């Protein structure tokens, strides 16, 4: 569990501090992986398979989140030609 916490914290740090939006998405994947490690280790120690089922759903959600996020990045990149979050300043509405 401590391992999972450490990985999650690194993910949070990367999420808050990187400039490149792709690395930020990778940090999100890192956090989801930390959650998975926690779920599966607890499922092992409690001898219960439900944790692994939950890890399945986390993997499915991570996959769809990556697909949607990268599609947003591509659409954004076509308009602005940058991948840095501090250059994204304008909003409408």
């Amino acid at each position, binding site marked *: 569990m401590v391992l999972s916490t450490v990985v999650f914290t690194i993910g949070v740090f990367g999420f808050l501090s990187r400039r490149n939006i792709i690395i930020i998405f990778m940090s999100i994947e890192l956090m989801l992986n930390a959650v998975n490690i926690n779920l599966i280790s607890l499922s092992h120690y409690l001898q219960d398979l*439900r944790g692994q089922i939950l890890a399945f759903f986390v993997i499915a959600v991570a996959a769809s989140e990556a697909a949607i996020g990268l599609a947003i*990045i591509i659409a954004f990149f076509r308009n602005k030609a940058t991948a840095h979050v501090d250059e994204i300043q304008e909003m409408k509405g």
Partner: protein
Amino acid sequence: MLPELFFAYFAFAIVLLSILVITRKNPVHSVLWMLLLFFHIASLYLFLNAEFIALVQLIVYAGGILVLFLFAVLLVNIREELRISRFIGAWPTGLTFAIGLFIVILISIKSFVLGQQGIYTIDLIKKESHIKALGKLLYTDFLYPFEIASLILLVAIIGAIVLAKRRLKG
């Protein structure tokens, strides 16, 4: 002794690799370190008697998501990326926040108590095979969440196509 040694190696490697993932300047290097990280996490799952999840981890993450990430990295101008600094200006705030969260979670872990043991002991899983036990549970108790997950994947497919499609002329 040997299991502790194994776990220590994997824990150390996972922490080191995840730090490498978020600190490399070149996004391609980041993605490749992440590949190694996913392999280590899959081995950790094998070590925790979760063979099927380990395989799914390898196929979905290493095979699917990382390829997507590599495609997206191809869009970034790497020369410019190597020139500018990799963190935003307010990175000490992020670090402080992350360390504070870490301490809070560590404190809350101390008050954690294990629940009661489930029925899926290692002997039962060995007798029935892991995939069979998992499938039985997934298609009976967790049928509705399973269907909802398929719906989420459908939404992801349609959403990705709609978002990344070029607008048609006229």
